[in-house]
């Protein structure tokens, strides 16, 4: 069995739509723009006003039309106006002996594991081989109140991804997602930045030279790497900061 857990972050564009798609919140609108498909929608909210204009984020009527078309909608809260199923939070918490859920993606992974595992002699095992694709789950979204997904939610999502991995689930995460990556993409303690990673254009090497010679070198770099989009002034500014 192969499932796609589709978040709303930029890497959603990489989704190949080859497997069953589970979406989150109002992600179905993005899916519609991408001409994709969605089989399940997960919510962990009641109605939410948009911080920018106060308009309600969820359109229950719109979602009911999706439900009528066969899309299953799960919510941990009961919404009278919405045709949805209750998320089996009690059964899932009992099965996995935890109630650690920091966001809707965590609920989705937990539901996938709940659905595709069984207990054999007290041990959880997969009912069948399972692959989970994570598109659009980049964990870099800024949240209201100055918090962000990276700080508050990444660990919990990774806990559930870890559990999936421990159960033998095949995991597919795009490079552009921060999931299962360190902040500098290097093994802790094993290696650190190399000079070319920090300073790919060799600007730091210009220290001590004259402004004219640095300008000359920057122009040659600009031509070499075809950096037409970059302003020469910006490069000079960067260079001067490096020299300082």
């Amino acid at each position, binding site marked *: 069995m192969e499932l796609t857990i589709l978040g709303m972050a930029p890497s959603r564009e990489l989704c190949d739509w080859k497997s069953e798609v589970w979406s989150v919140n109002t992600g179905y609108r993005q899916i519609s723009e991408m001409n994709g498909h969605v089989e399940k929608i997960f919510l962990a909210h009641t109605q939410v006003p948009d911080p920018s204009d106060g308009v309600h984020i969820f359109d229950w009527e719109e979602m009911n039309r999706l439900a009528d078309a066969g899309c299953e909608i799960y919510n941990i809260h009961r919404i009278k106006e919405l045709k949805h199923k209750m998320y089996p939070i009690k059964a899932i918490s009992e099965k*996995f002996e*935890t109630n*650690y*859920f*920091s966001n809707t993606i965590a609920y989705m992974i937990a539901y996938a594991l709940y659905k595709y595992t069984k207990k054999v002699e007290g*041990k*959880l095992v997969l009912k069948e081989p399972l692959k989970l694709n994570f598109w659009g789950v980049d964990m870099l979204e800024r949240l209201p109140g100055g918090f962000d997904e*990276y*700080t*508050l939610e*990444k*660990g*919990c999502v*990774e*806990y*559930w*991804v*870890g*559990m*999936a*991995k*421990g*159960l*033998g689930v095949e995991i597919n995460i795009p490079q552009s997602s921060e999931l*299962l*990556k*360190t*902040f500098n993409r290097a*093994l*802790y*303690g*094993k290696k650190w930045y190399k000079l070319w990673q920090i300073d790919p254009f060799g600007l730091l090497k210009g220290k001590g030279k004259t402004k004219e010679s640095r300008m000359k070198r920057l122009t040659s770099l600009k031509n070499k790497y075809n950096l037409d989009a970059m302003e020469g002034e910006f490069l000079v500014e960067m260079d001067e900061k490096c020299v300082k």
Partner: protein
Amino acid sequence: MREVTILGGGESIKYCPYDTKEIWTCNRVYKKAKRVTKLFWMHGFKFDEDVDFQVITKKTYPYKAIIEKFGDYFTDSVCYILAYALYKGYKKIKLYGVEMNLKRHQEERPGVEFWLGVAKGMGIQIEIGEGSCLMKR
């Protein structure tokens, strides 16, 4: 059942019962601990103290085998210790003093929680001592 206790440097290390044969820790936490059987010294600095426990360094840690088996997501030394415990087949892991409550732990905590998830998925019992922010929202 093979059990191991992993000690972090947080204040809650004082709650550790030291009731497992194996007590593993990292960096300078061995100076706080009542008993240690293995030290993970994963930074580049040379460890040249005379101690009565095994010291695992960057050079002796089985990176290749562990990465091949579990992946390469390590955000701090505790991740390396957890991965090592899974690799060695321990069935119960206790964590004390691994609090992850400071701002600098923002980048480290997810990695530790990932490895706890892997352990849980493998059917390993996890015990997290009091005072830890691990697996709490």
